[in-house]
Protein backbone atom coordinates (compact mmCIF):
# COMPACT_ATOMS: atom_id res chain seq x y z
CA UNK A 1 0.00 0.00 0.00
CA UNK A 2 2.71 2.41 1.04
CA UNK A 3 4.79 1.36 -1.95
CA UNK A 4 1.93 2.14 -4.23
CA UNK A 5 1.52 5.56 -2.65
CA UNK A 6 5.19 6.31 -3.06
CA UNK A 7 5.00 5.26 -6.66
CA UNK A 8 1.95 7.39 -7.24
CA UNK A 9 3.69 10.41 -5.67
CA UNK A 10 6.82 9.86 -7.75
CA UNK A 11 4.90 9.59 -10.99
CA UNK A 12 2.87 12.69 -10.12
CA UNK A 13 6.09 14.58 -9.50
CA UNK A 14 7.44 13.28 -12.79
CA UNK A 15 4.30 14.47 -14.54
CA UNK A 16 4.57 17.97 -13.03
CA UNK A 17 8.25 18.14 -13.96
CA UNK A 18 7.63 17.18 -17.57
CA UNK A 19 4.64 19.48 -17.82
CA UNK A 20 6.57 22.45 -16.46
CA UNK A 21 9.52 21.65 -18.71
CA UNK A 22 7.28 21.76 -21.75
CA UNK A 23 5.58 24.93 -20.54
CA UNK A 24 8.93 26.66 -20.07
CA UNK A 25 10.19 25.37 -23.40
CA UNK A 26 7.12 26.60 -25.23
CA UNK A 27 7.20 30.02 -23.49
CA UNK A 28 10.86 30.42 -24.36
CA UNK A 29 10.14 29.47 -27.95
CA UNK A 30 7.28 32.00 -27.98
CA UNK A 31 9.45 34.84 -26.69
CA UNK A 32 12.24 33.90 -29.08
CA UNK A 33 9.87 33.80 -32.04
CA UNK A 34 8.30 37.15 -31.18
CA UNK A 35 11.77 38.66 -30.83
CA UNK A 36 12.95 36.92 -34.01
CA UNK A 37 10.45 38.99 -36.01
CA UNK A 38 12.68 42.00 -35.33
CA UNK A 39 15.92 40.21 -35.95
CA UNK A 40 18.64 41.28 -38.33
CA UNK A 41 21.54 39.12 -39.37
CA UNK A 42 23.77 42.18 -39.48
CA UNK A 43 25.50 43.40 -36.38
CA UNK A 44 24.64 46.83 -35.05
CA UNK A 45 27.05 49.48 -33.79
CA UNK A 46 26.66 52.92 -32.21
CA UNK A 47 27.03 56.05 -34.27
CA UNK A 48 26.01 59.65 -33.83
CA UNK A 49 24.10 61.77 -36.28
CA UNK A 50 26.22 64.92 -36.75
CA UNK A 51 23.17 66.89 -37.86
CA UNK A 52 21.49 66.27 -34.50
CA UNK A 53 24.63 66.90 -32.42
CA UNK A 54 24.53 70.02 -30.24
CA UNK A 55 28.25 69.95 -29.28
CA UNK A 56 27.51 69.68 -25.55
CA UNK A 57 30.85 68.01 -24.84
CA UNK A 58 29.48 64.98 -23.03
CA UNK A 59 31.07 62.60 -25.56
CA UNK A 60 34.39 63.45 -23.97
CA UNK A 61 33.23 62.64 -20.44
CA UNK A 62 30.78 59.77 -20.61
CA UNK A 63 32.45 57.21 -22.87
CA UNK A 64 33.56 54.04 -21.03
CA UNK A 65 36.87 54.37 -22.83
CA UNK A 66 39.49 56.86 -21.72
CA UNK A 67 39.99 58.86 -23.85
CA UNK A 68 36.64 58.73 -25.55
CA UNK A 69 36.05 56.62 -28.67
CA UNK A 70 34.26 59.62 -30.12
CA UNK A 71 36.61 61.75 -32.18
CA UNK A 72 36.33 64.79 -34.33
CA UNK A 73 36.53 63.95 -38.02
CA UNK A 74 36.95 66.31 -40.91
CA UNK A 75 34.79 66.21 -44.02
CA UNK A 76 37.28 67.87 -46.37
CA UNK A 77 34.61 68.16 -49.05
CA UNK A 78 32.71 70.65 -46.95
CA UNK A 79 35.69 72.66 -45.72
CA UNK A 80 36.27 76.19 -46.95
CA UNK A 81 40.02 75.97 -46.20
CA UNK A 82 39.77 79.41 -44.64
CA UNK A 83 42.67 81.21 -43.02
CA UNK A 84 40.32 82.52 -40.35
CA UNK A 85 38.94 79.16 -39.16
CA UNK A 86 36.16 79.15 -36.56
CA UNK A 87 37.06 75.61 -35.54
CA UNK A 88 40.78 76.24 -35.20
CA UNK A 89 41.06 79.68 -33.62
CA UNK A 90 39.46 81.01 -30.51
CA UNK A 91 36.81 83.62 -31.29
CA UNK A 92 38.74 86.17 -29.20
CA UNK A 93 42.22 85.10 -30.23
CA UNK A 94 44.98 87.62 -29.73
CA UNK A 95 46.43 87.01 -33.14
CA UNK A 96 45.71 84.86 -36.15
CA UNK A 97 48.72 82.70 -35.47
CA UNK A 98 49.15 79.04 -34.63
CA UNK A 99 50.33 79.88 -31.11
CA UNK A 100 48.80 77.64 -28.47
CA UNK A 101 46.93 80.46 -26.75
CA UNK A 102 45.02 81.17 -29.94
CA UNK A 103 43.94 77.62 -30.61
CA UNK A 104 40.45 76.52 -29.70
CA UNK A 105 41.43 72.87 -29.29
CA UNK A 106 42.55 72.18 -25.70
CA UNK A 107 44.98 69.47 -26.85
CA UNK A 108 46.18 71.05 -30.11
CA UNK A 109 44.74 68.09 -31.98
CA UNK A 110 43.98 70.17 -35.07
CA UNK A 111 47.00 70.51 -37.31
CA UNK A 112 47.03 73.38 -39.74
CA UNK A 113 48.91 73.04 -42.99
CA UNK A 114 49.47 75.71 -45.60
CA UNK A 115 48.11 74.69 -49.02
CA UNK A 116 48.28 77.83 -51.13
CA UNK A 117 47.53 81.43 -50.55
CA UNK A 118 45.17 82.01 -48.74
CA UNK A 119 44.07 78.45 -48.03
CA UNK A 120 44.91 76.11 -45.18
CA UNK A 121 44.19 72.47 -44.63
CA UNK A 122 43.01 71.35 -41.19
CA UNK A 123 43.73 67.83 -40.08
CA UNK A 124 42.69 66.07 -36.87
CA UNK A 125 45.28 64.16 -34.89
CA UNK A 126 42.99 61.50 -33.45
CA UNK A 127 45.61 60.41 -30.96
CA UNK A 128 45.18 63.78 -29.24
CA UNK A 129 41.48 64.37 -29.85
CA UNK A 130 39.17 63.41 -27.00
CA UNK A 131 35.86 64.42 -28.49
CA UNK A 132 35.17 67.62 -26.56
CA UNK A 133 33.45 69.15 -29.61
CA UNK A 134 34.78 72.67 -29.01
CA UNK A 135 36.01 72.85 -32.60
CA UNK A 136 32.75 71.36 -33.85
CA UNK A 137 30.86 74.15 -32.18
CA UNK A 138 33.21 76.74 -33.63
CA UNK A 139 33.09 75.26 -37.12
CA UNK A 140 29.30 74.89 -37.09
CA UNK A 141 28.69 78.40 -35.74
CA UNK A 142 31.19 80.31 -37.86
CA UNK A 143 31.98 77.94 -40.69
CA UNK A 144 30.62 75.19 -42.90
CA UNK A 145 30.33 72.57 -40.22
CA UNK A 146 32.91 70.33 -41.85
CA UNK A 147 34.37 69.35 -38.46
CA UNK A 148 32.03 66.93 -36.71
CA UNK A 149 32.04 64.10 -34.22
CA UNK A 150 31.94 60.41 -35.08
CA UNK A 151 32.27 57.21 -33.08
CA UNK A 152 35.54 55.58 -34.12
CA UNK A 153 34.86 51.88 -34.48
CA UNK A 154 38.45 50.80 -34.02
CA UNK A 155 38.25 52.30 -30.51
CA UNK A 156 34.60 51.76 -29.61
CA UNK A 157 33.96 48.54 -27.67
CA UNK A 158 30.32 48.57 -28.77
CA UNK A 159 28.68 48.41 -25.34
CA UNK A 160 25.22 46.96 -25.35
CA UNK A 161 23.98 50.34 -24.23
CA UNK A 162 26.28 53.20 -25.13
CA UNK A 163 26.89 55.21 -21.99
CA UNK A 164 27.08 58.41 -24.03
CA UNK A 165 23.78 57.65 -25.76
CA UNK A 166 22.13 57.51 -22.36
CA UNK A 167 23.10 61.12 -21.59
CA UNK A 168 23.10 62.66 -25.09
CA UNK A 169 20.78 65.68 -24.80
CA UNK A 170 19.98 65.66 -28.52
CA UNK A 171 19.28 61.93 -28.93
CA UNK A 172 21.92 61.96 -31.63
CA UNK A 173 23.17 58.44 -30.90
CA UNK A 174 21.60 55.52 -32.66
CA UNK A 175 22.39 51.97 -33.64
CA UNK A 176 23.42 51.62 -37.26
CA UNK A 177 24.18 48.46 -39.26
CA UNK A 178 27.82 47.47 -38.93
CA UNK A 179 28.02 47.28 -42.72
CA UNK A 180 27.44 51.05 -42.90
CA UNK A 181 28.89 52.28 -39.64
CA UNK A 182 29.69 55.96 -40.30
CA UNK A 183 27.69 59.10 -40.80
CA UNK A 184 30.41 61.29 -42.22
CA UNK A 185 28.99 64.61 -43.32
CA UNK A 186 28.95 64.92 -47.09
CA UNK A 187 28.68 61.16 -47.61
CA UNK A 188 25.54 61.31 -45.58
CA UNK A 189 23.22 64.26 -45.29
CA UNK A 190 19.95 65.26 -43.71
CA UNK A 191 17.83 68.11 -44.98
CA UNK A 192 20.62 69.44 -47.19
CA UNK A 193 21.70 68.58 -50.69
CA UNK A 194 24.55 66.18 -51.20
CA UNK A 195 27.73 68.15 -51.36
CA UNK A 196 29.49 68.21 -54.70
CA UNK A 197 32.36 65.79 -54.73
CA UNK A 198 35.56 67.60 -55.58
Amino acid at each position, binding site marked *: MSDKKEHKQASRREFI*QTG*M*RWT*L*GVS*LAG*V*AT*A*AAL*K*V*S*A*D*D*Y*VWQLDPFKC*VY*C*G*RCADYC*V*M*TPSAVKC*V*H*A*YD*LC*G*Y*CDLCGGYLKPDANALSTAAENQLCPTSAIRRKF*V*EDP*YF*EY*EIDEELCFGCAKCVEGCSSF*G*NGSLHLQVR*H*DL*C*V*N*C*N*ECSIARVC*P*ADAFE*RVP*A*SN*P*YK*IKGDFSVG*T*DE*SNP*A
Partner: protein
Amino acid sequence: MNRISKIFFAIAAFLLSLPAWAQQRFPKPEFETGYVQPATSQAPPRGLFLEYLDVFMLVAVLVVATWFVVKKRSRRGVLWTTVFAVLYFGFFRQGCICSIGAIQNVTLALFDPTYVLPFTALLFFVIPLVVTLFYGRTFCAAVCPLGAIQDLVAFRPIELPRWLQKVLGIIPYLYLALAVLYAATSSEFLICRYDPFVGIFRFDAEFQMLLLGGLFLLVGIFVARPYCRFFCPYGVLLGWMSTFSKKHMTITPSNCIQCKLCANSCPFGAIEEPVEEQGNRRSNVQRLMTYLFFIPLWIGIGGLAGSMMHVPLAKFNSTVYLAEQLVEHPELKQDQEHIDARAFMQSGKSMDQLVAEAKEIRSQFYWGGWIVGGFLGLVIGLTLLKLSSHRNRYDYEPDKTNCLSCGRCMDYCPVKN
Protein backbone atom coordinates in the same frame (compact mmCIF):
# COMPACT_ATOMS: atom_id res chain seq x y z
CA MET B 1 30.34 102.10 -36.96
CA ASN B 2 26.73 101.48 -36.17
CA ARG B 3 25.78 101.57 -39.81
CA ILE B 4 28.54 99.17 -40.75
CA SER B 5 27.47 96.66 -38.18
CA LYS B 6 23.86 96.98 -39.35
CA ILE B 7 24.93 96.27 -42.91
CA PHE B 8 27.00 93.37 -41.71
CA PHE B 9 24.08 91.87 -39.83
CA ALA B 10 21.80 92.39 -42.78
CA ILE B 11 24.19 90.52 -45.04
CA ALA B 12 24.69 87.80 -42.48
CA ALA B 13 20.95 87.38 -42.02
CA PHE B 14 20.50 87.28 -45.79
CA LEU B 15 23.15 84.62 -46.20
CA LEU B 16 21.83 82.51 -43.36
CA SER B 17 18.23 82.72 -44.57
CA LEU B 18 19.07 81.11 -47.89
CA PRO B 19 20.36 77.69 -46.94
CA ALA B 20 19.17 76.11 -50.20
CA TRP B 21 21.01 78.65 -52.27
CA ALA B 22 24.02 79.15 -50.07
CA GLN B 23 24.57 75.62 -48.93
CA GLN B 24 28.03 76.42 -47.65
CA ARG B 25 28.95 79.72 -46.16
CA PHE B 26 32.48 79.38 -47.46
CA PRO B 27 32.53 77.35 -50.66
CA LYS B 28 35.43 75.07 -51.20
CA PRO B 29 38.19 76.85 -53.12
CA GLU B 30 39.41 75.93 -56.57
CA PHE B 31 43.00 74.94 -55.92
CA GLU B 32 45.68 75.86 -58.44
CA THR B 33 48.67 73.98 -57.05
CA GLY B 34 47.37 70.49 -57.65
CA TYR B 35 46.49 69.97 -54.01
CA VAL B 36 45.02 66.52 -53.40
CA GLN B 37 42.36 66.42 -50.72
CA PRO B 38 42.87 63.65 -48.18
CA ALA B 39 40.08 61.16 -47.55
CA THR B 40 38.33 61.03 -44.19
CA SER B 41 39.42 57.77 -42.62
CA GLN B 42 36.73 55.29 -41.63
CA ALA B 43 38.10 52.47 -39.52
CA PRO B 44 35.68 49.55 -39.81
CA PRO B 45 34.04 47.95 -36.75
CA ARG B 46 34.70 44.38 -35.70
CA GLY B 47 33.80 42.02 -38.52
CA LEU B 48 30.42 40.31 -38.61
CA PHE B 49 32.22 36.99 -38.97
CA LEU B 50 33.83 37.53 -35.56
CA GLU B 51 30.46 38.23 -33.95
CA TYR B 52 29.21 34.86 -35.14
CA LEU B 53 32.47 33.31 -34.02
CA ASP B 54 31.53 34.46 -30.51
CA VAL B 55 28.23 32.62 -30.78
CA PHE B 56 30.12 29.57 -31.94
CA MET B 57 32.49 29.93 -28.96
CA LEU B 58 29.50 30.23 -26.63
CA VAL B 59 28.05 26.98 -27.96
CA ALA B 60 31.43 25.24 -27.91
CA VAL B 61 32.27 26.27 -24.33
CA LEU B 62 28.73 25.37 -23.22
CA VAL B 63 29.07 21.92 -24.75
CA VAL B 64 32.46 21.40 -23.12
CA ALA B 65 31.22 22.62 -19.72
CA THR B 66 28.09 20.46 -19.91
CA TRP B 67 30.17 17.45 -20.87
CA PHE B 68 32.51 18.00 -17.93
CA VAL B 69 29.63 18.46 -15.47
CA VAL B 70 27.06 15.90 -16.57
CA LYS B 71 29.05 13.22 -18.35
CA LYS B 72 32.66 13.37 -17.21
CA ARG B 73 31.89 14.59 -13.66
CA SER B 74 35.20 16.39 -13.55
CA ARG B 75 35.61 19.42 -11.30
CA ARG B 76 39.07 19.99 -12.71
CA GLY B 77 37.65 20.17 -16.23
CA VAL B 78 35.03 22.68 -15.11
CA LEU B 79 37.70 24.78 -13.43
CA TRP B 80 39.81 25.02 -16.57
CA THR B 81 36.75 25.87 -18.62
CA THR B 82 36.07 28.62 -16.10
CA VAL B 83 39.56 30.00 -16.57
CA PHE B 84 39.09 29.92 -20.32
CA ALA B 85 35.73 31.73 -20.06
CA VAL B 86 37.27 34.54 -17.99
CA LEU B 87 40.07 34.93 -20.49
CA TYR B 88 37.97 34.72 -23.66
CA PHE B 89 34.53 36.16 -22.85
CA GLY B 90 35.95 38.40 -20.15
CA PHE B 91 39.33 39.86 -20.93
CA PHE B 92 39.45 39.20 -24.67
CA ARG B 93 35.86 39.94 -25.64
CA GLN B 94 35.56 42.49 -22.81
CA GLY B 95 32.20 41.32 -21.63
CA CYS B 96 29.91 42.63 -24.40
CA ILE B 97 27.55 41.23 -25.45
CA CYS B 98 26.61 38.85 -22.67
CA SER B 99 23.57 36.73 -22.05
CA ILE B 100 22.61 38.72 -18.96
CA GLY B 101 22.45 41.98 -20.88
CA ALA B 102 20.71 40.30 -23.82
CA ILE B 103 17.54 40.12 -21.69
CA GLN B 104 17.15 43.83 -22.33
CA ASN B 105 17.75 43.59 -26.08
CA VAL B 106 15.06 40.94 -26.36
CA THR B 107 12.69 42.98 -24.18
CA LEU B 108 13.28 46.09 -26.23
CA ALA B 109 12.65 44.10 -29.42
CA LEU B 110 9.30 43.00 -28.00
CA PHE B 111 8.22 46.49 -26.98
CA ASP B 112 9.88 48.96 -29.32
CA PRO B 113 8.63 48.59 -32.92
CA THR B 114 11.63 50.49 -34.31
CA TYR B 115 14.32 48.47 -32.56
CA VAL B 116 16.31 46.03 -34.66
CA LEU B 117 17.59 43.05 -32.72
CA PRO B 118 20.97 41.68 -33.80
CA PHE B 119 20.64 37.94 -34.33
CA THR B 120 23.73 37.34 -32.21
CA ALA B 121 22.03 38.99 -29.21
CA LEU B 122 19.00 36.73 -29.58
CA LEU B 123 21.26 33.67 -29.76
CA PHE B 124 23.17 34.77 -26.66
CA PHE B 125 19.84 35.05 -24.86
CA VAL B 126 18.27 31.79 -26.00
CA ILE B 127 21.10 29.24 -26.19
CA PRO B 128 22.06 29.10 -22.48
CA LEU B 129 18.38 28.89 -21.50
CA VAL B 130 17.76 25.97 -23.83
CA VAL B 131 20.85 24.12 -22.61
CA THR B 132 19.80 24.77 -19.00
CA LEU B 133 16.35 23.34 -19.69
CA PHE B 134 18.08 20.07 -20.54
CA TYR B 135 21.20 19.92 -18.36
CA GLY B 136 20.95 22.49 -15.55
CA ARG B 137 22.92 25.68 -15.06
CA THR B 138 26.17 24.61 -16.71
CA PHE B 139 26.24 28.08 -18.26
CA CYS B 140 26.70 29.54 -14.76
CA ALA B 141 29.26 26.88 -13.90
CA ALA B 142 31.88 27.73 -16.45
CA VAL B 143 30.72 29.86 -19.38
CA CYS B 144 29.44 33.17 -18.04
CA PRO B 145 32.48 35.43 -17.55
CA LEU B 146 30.82 37.24 -14.64
CA GLY B 147 30.27 34.00 -12.79
CA ALA B 148 33.66 32.64 -13.76
CA ILE B 149 35.67 35.55 -12.36
CA GLN B 150 33.78 35.29 -9.06
CA ASP B 151 34.20 31.52 -8.94
CA LEU B 152 37.95 31.93 -9.20
CA VAL B 153 38.14 34.24 -6.15
CA ALA B 154 35.90 32.19 -3.83
CA PHE B 155 38.76 31.19 -1.56
CA ARG B 156 37.14 31.21 1.88
CA PRO B 157 33.41 30.75 1.45
CA ILE B 158 31.33 31.00 4.60
CA GLU B 159 27.85 29.65 4.92
CA LEU B 160 25.15 32.26 5.15
CA PRO B 161 22.13 31.54 7.31
CA ARG B 162 19.28 30.08 5.29
CA TRP B 163 16.86 32.90 6.08
CA LEU B 164 19.38 35.46 4.81
CA GLN B 165 19.89 33.47 1.62
CA LYS B 166 16.14 33.37 1.07
CA VAL B 167 15.71 37.10 1.69
CA LEU B 168 18.66 38.10 -0.51
CA GLY B 169 17.40 35.62 -3.09
CA ILE B 170 14.42 37.93 -3.73
CA ILE B 171 16.71 40.69 -5.07
CA PRO B 172 17.38 39.05 -8.46
CA TYR B 173 13.63 38.95 -9.13
CA LEU B 174 13.37 42.65 -8.33
CA TYR B 175 16.40 43.38 -10.49
CA LEU B 176 15.00 41.35 -13.38
CA ALA B 177 11.60 43.03 -13.13
CA LEU B 178 13.11 46.52 -13.03
CA ALA B 179 15.54 45.76 -15.87
CA VAL B 180 12.64 44.57 -18.04
CA LEU B 181 10.57 47.61 -17.03
CA TYR B 182 13.31 50.07 -17.93
CA ALA B 183 14.14 48.27 -21.18
CA ALA B 184 10.47 48.01 -22.16
CA THR B 185 9.96 51.74 -21.64
CA SER B 186 13.15 52.43 -23.67
CA SER B 187 14.55 54.24 -20.63
CA GLU B 188 17.89 52.55 -20.15
CA PHE B 189 19.70 49.24 -19.84
CA LEU B 190 19.94 48.90 -16.08
CA ILE B 191 21.88 45.63 -16.11
CA CYS B 192 24.60 46.98 -18.37
CA ARG B 193 24.87 50.21 -16.45
CA TYR B 194 25.52 48.38 -13.20
CA ASP B 195 27.52 45.48 -14.61
CA PRO B 196 30.19 45.18 -11.90
CA PHE B 197 32.87 43.34 -13.84
CA VAL B 198 32.91 44.87 -17.29
CA GLY B 199 35.25 47.61 -16.05
CA ILE B 200 37.67 45.03 -14.71
CA PHE B 201 37.57 43.10 -18.00
CA ARG B 202 38.38 46.30 -19.88
CA PHE B 203 40.90 47.68 -17.38
CA ASP B 204 39.03 50.91 -17.89
CA ALA B 205 35.80 52.34 -16.52
CA GLU B 206 34.33 55.02 -14.36
CA PHE B 207 35.57 54.96 -10.79
CA GLN B 208 32.25 53.78 -9.32
CA MET B 209 32.13 50.88 -11.75
CA LEU B 210 35.60 49.67 -10.79
CA LEU B 211 34.77 50.20 -7.12
CA LEU B 212 31.62 48.10 -7.47
CA GLY B 213 33.57 45.36 -9.25
CA GLY B 214 36.33 45.38 -6.66
CA LEU B 215 33.78 45.26 -3.87
CA PHE B 216 32.00 42.28 -5.40
CA LEU B 217 35.28 40.41 -5.79
CA LEU B 218 36.29 41.25 -2.22
CA VAL B 219 32.97 40.09 -0.80
CA GLY B 220 33.19 37.14 -3.19
CA ILE B 221 36.19 35.76 -1.33
CA PHE B 222 33.94 35.01 1.64
CA VAL B 223 30.44 34.93 0.18
CA ALA B 224 30.87 32.83 -2.94
CA ARG B 225 29.54 34.39 -6.13
CA PRO B 226 27.53 37.21 -4.57
CA TYR B 227 26.46 38.66 -7.92
CA CYS B 228 25.26 35.31 -9.31
CA ARG B 229 23.25 34.38 -6.24
CA PHE B 230 21.86 37.67 -5.04
CA PHE B 231 21.73 39.96 -8.08
CA CYS B 232 21.94 38.21 -11.43
CA PRO B 233 18.63 38.67 -13.26
CA TYR B 234 19.49 36.09 -15.90
CA GLY B 235 20.03 33.64 -13.04
CA VAL B 236 16.31 33.92 -12.30
CA LEU B 237 15.42 32.68 -15.77
CA LEU B 238 18.12 30.02 -15.63
CA GLY B 239 16.81 28.96 -12.22
CA TRP B 240 13.34 28.37 -13.64
CA MET B 241 14.78 26.34 -16.48
CA SER B 242 17.09 24.40 -14.20
CA THR B 243 14.32 23.54 -11.70
CA PHE B 244 12.59 21.51 -14.38
CA SER B 245 15.68 20.44 -16.27
CA LYS B 246 15.67 17.01 -17.82
CA LYS B 247 19.09 15.78 -16.79
CA HIS B 248 20.53 17.85 -13.98
CA MET B 249 23.90 16.88 -12.52
CA THR B 250 23.79 14.62 -9.50
CA ILE B 251 26.12 14.65 -6.51
CA THR B 252 26.73 10.92 -6.53
CA PRO B 253 27.12 8.84 -9.65
CA SER B 254 25.12 6.01 -8.06
CA ASN B 255 23.85 5.63 -4.49
CA CYS B 256 24.33 8.24 -1.80
CA ILE B 257 26.00 6.83 1.31
CA GLN B 258 24.95 9.84 3.41
CA CYS B 259 28.50 10.73 4.38
CA LYS B 260 27.69 14.50 4.47
CA LEU B 261 30.96 15.38 2.80
CA CYS B 262 29.21 17.19 -0.04
CA ALA B 263 27.09 19.35 2.24
CA ASN B 264 30.21 21.17 3.41
CA SER B 265 31.71 21.38 -0.06
CA CYS B 266 29.04 23.57 -1.60
CA PRO B 267 29.98 27.25 -1.25
CA PHE B 268 26.55 28.35 -2.48
CA GLY B 269 24.36 26.57 0.07
CA ALA B 270 22.66 24.76 -2.77
CA ILE B 271 22.67 21.24 -1.35
CA GLU B 272 19.53 20.03 0.34
CA GLU B 273 19.88 17.67 3.24
CA PRO B 274 17.68 14.65 3.82
CA VAL B 275 14.46 15.53 5.63
CA GLU B 276 11.46 13.64 6.83
CA GLU B 277 8.05 15.19 6.80
CA GLN B 278 7.27 16.48 10.26
CA GLY B 279 3.94 16.94 11.96
CA ASN B 280 0.51 15.96 10.91
CA ARG B 281 0.09 15.53 7.16
CA ARG B 282 -3.40 16.97 7.13
CA SER B 283 -2.38 20.16 8.94
CA ASN B 284 0.65 20.49 6.66
CA VAL B 285 -1.58 20.36 3.60
CA GLN B 286 -3.93 22.85 5.22
CA ARG B 287 -1.08 25.26 5.89
CA LEU B 288 0.02 24.92 2.28
CA MET B 289 -3.50 25.71 1.12
CA THR B 290 -3.57 28.80 3.32
CA TYR B 291 -0.35 30.06 1.79
CA LEU B 292 -1.69 29.28 -1.67
CA PHE B 293 -4.83 31.21 -0.82
CA PHE B 294 -2.75 34.23 0.22
CA ILE B 295 -0.83 34.42 -3.07
CA PRO B 296 -3.45 36.55 -4.89
CA LEU B 297 -3.36 38.88 -1.90
CA TRP B 298 0.43 39.15 -2.20
CA ILE B 299 0.09 39.90 -5.90
CA GLY B 300 -2.50 42.58 -5.18
CA ILE B 301 -0.43 44.25 -2.45
CA GLY B 302 2.71 44.09 -4.61
CA GLY B 303 0.93 45.51 -7.63
CA LEU B 304 -0.59 48.34 -5.64
CA ALA B 305 2.77 49.20 -4.08
CA GLY B 306 4.47 49.01 -7.49
CA SER B 307 1.91 51.29 -9.12
CA MET B 308 2.27 53.79 -6.28
CA MET B 309 6.00 53.83 -6.93
CA HIS B 310 5.59 54.77 -10.58
CA VAL B 311 6.46 58.47 -10.16
CA PRO B 312 9.87 57.91 -8.54
CA LEU B 313 10.52 54.94 -10.85
CA ALA B 314 9.83 57.08 -13.92
CA LYS B 315 12.33 59.70 -12.75
CA PHE B 316 15.12 57.55 -14.18
CA ASN B 317 13.74 58.12 -17.66
CA SER B 318 15.57 61.13 -19.07
CA THR B 319 12.52 62.60 -20.84
CA VAL B 320 10.40 62.42 -17.70
CA TYR B 321 13.21 63.84 -15.60
CA LEU B 322 13.75 66.78 -17.95
CA ALA B 323 10.03 67.52 -18.12
CA GLU B 324 9.75 67.46 -14.32
CA GLN B 325 12.70 69.78 -13.97
CA LEU B 326 11.43 72.27 -16.52
CA VAL B 327 7.92 72.30 -15.06
CA GLU B 328 9.17 72.83 -11.53
CA HIS B 329 11.89 75.32 -12.43
CA PRO B 330 10.87 77.18 -15.61
CA GLU B 331 13.88 79.48 -15.21
CA LEU B 332 16.10 76.55 -16.25
CA LYS B 333 14.91 77.04 -19.84
CA GLN B 334 17.13 80.10 -20.05
CA ASP B 335 20.03 78.48 -18.22
CA GLN B 336 22.86 78.07 -20.73
CA GLU B 337 24.81 75.91 -18.30
CA HIS B 338 22.03 73.31 -18.13
CA ILE B 339 22.93 71.20 -21.14
CA ASP B 340 19.70 69.21 -21.36
CA ALA B 341 17.50 72.28 -21.03
CA ARG B 342 19.57 74.15 -23.62
CA ALA B 343 19.43 71.25 -26.08
CA PHE B 344 15.68 71.01 -25.56
CA MET B 345 15.19 74.73 -26.25
CA GLN B 346 17.36 74.42 -29.37
CA SER B 347 15.41 71.42 -30.63
CA GLY B 348 12.35 73.59 -31.25
CA LYS B 349 10.06 71.16 -29.46
CA SER B 350 7.30 72.82 -27.48
CA MET B 351 6.92 72.40 -23.75
CA ASP B 352 3.49 70.84 -24.28
CA GLN B 353 4.98 68.15 -26.49
CA LEU B 354 7.59 67.34 -23.87
CA VAL B 355 5.03 67.18 -21.08
CA ALA B 356 2.73 64.99 -23.18
CA GLU B 357 5.62 62.61 -23.91
CA ALA B 358 6.57 62.50 -20.24
CA LYS B 359 2.95 61.81 -19.25
CA GLU B 360 2.80 58.95 -21.74
CA ILE B 361 5.98 57.41 -20.33
CA ARG B 362 4.70 57.88 -16.80
CA SER B 363 1.52 56.01 -17.59
CA GLN B 364 3.66 53.21 -19.01
CA PHE B 365 5.46 53.16 -15.69
CA TYR B 366 2.11 53.09 -13.87
CA TRP B 367 1.06 49.87 -15.59
CA GLY B 368 4.62 48.59 -15.50
CA GLY B 369 4.58 49.24 -11.74
CA TRP B 370 1.50 47.07 -11.36
CA ILE B 371 3.17 44.26 -13.29
CA VAL B 372 6.53 44.55 -11.52
CA GLY B 373 4.86 44.75 -8.09
CA GLY B 374 2.47 41.92 -8.85
CA PHE B 375 5.35 39.77 -10.05
CA LEU B 376 7.30 40.46 -6.87
CA GLY B 377 4.20 39.69 -4.79
CA LEU B 378 3.93 36.38 -6.60
CA VAL B 379 7.60 35.65 -5.94
CA ILE B 380 7.25 36.42 -2.23
CA GLY B 381 4.09 34.32 -2.02
CA LEU B 382 5.71 31.37 -3.76
CA THR B 383 8.87 31.66 -1.65
CA LEU B 384 6.77 31.44 1.51
CA LEU B 385 4.82 28.56 0.03
CA LYS B 386 8.01 26.72 -0.78
CA LEU B 387 9.40 27.35 2.70
CA SER B 388 6.35 25.81 4.30
CA SER B 389 6.13 22.78 2.05
CA HIS B 390 7.88 19.64 3.20
CA ARG B 391 8.94 16.92 0.93
CA ASN B 392 10.56 13.73 2.08
CA ARG B 393 14.12 13.57 0.93
CA TYR B 394 16.27 10.56 1.66
CA ASP B 395 19.59 11.63 0.11
CA TYR B 396 21.71 14.72 -0.27
CA GLU B 397 20.50 16.39 -3.43
CA PRO B 398 21.36 19.56 -5.30
CA ASP B 399 18.76 22.30 -5.06
CA LYS B 400 18.13 22.39 -8.80
CA THR B 401 17.02 26.02 -8.83
CA ASN B 402 20.09 27.46 -7.16
CA CYS B 403 22.72 24.85 -7.99
CA LEU B 404 25.30 26.41 -10.29
CA SER B 405 26.60 23.01 -11.43
CA CYS B 406 30.16 23.95 -10.51
CA GLY B 407 30.88 20.32 -9.63
CA ARG B 408 32.65 20.85 -6.28
CA CYS B 409 30.34 18.36 -4.56
CA MET B 410 31.08 15.70 -7.16
CA ASP B 411 34.73 16.10 -6.36
CA TYR B 412 34.06 15.56 -2.64
CA CYS B 413 31.76 12.60 -3.10
CA PRO B 414 33.62 9.41 -2.13
CA VAL B 415 31.36 7.27 -4.34
CA LYS B 416 33.17 7.19 -7.64
CA ASN B 417 31.10 4.91 -9.84
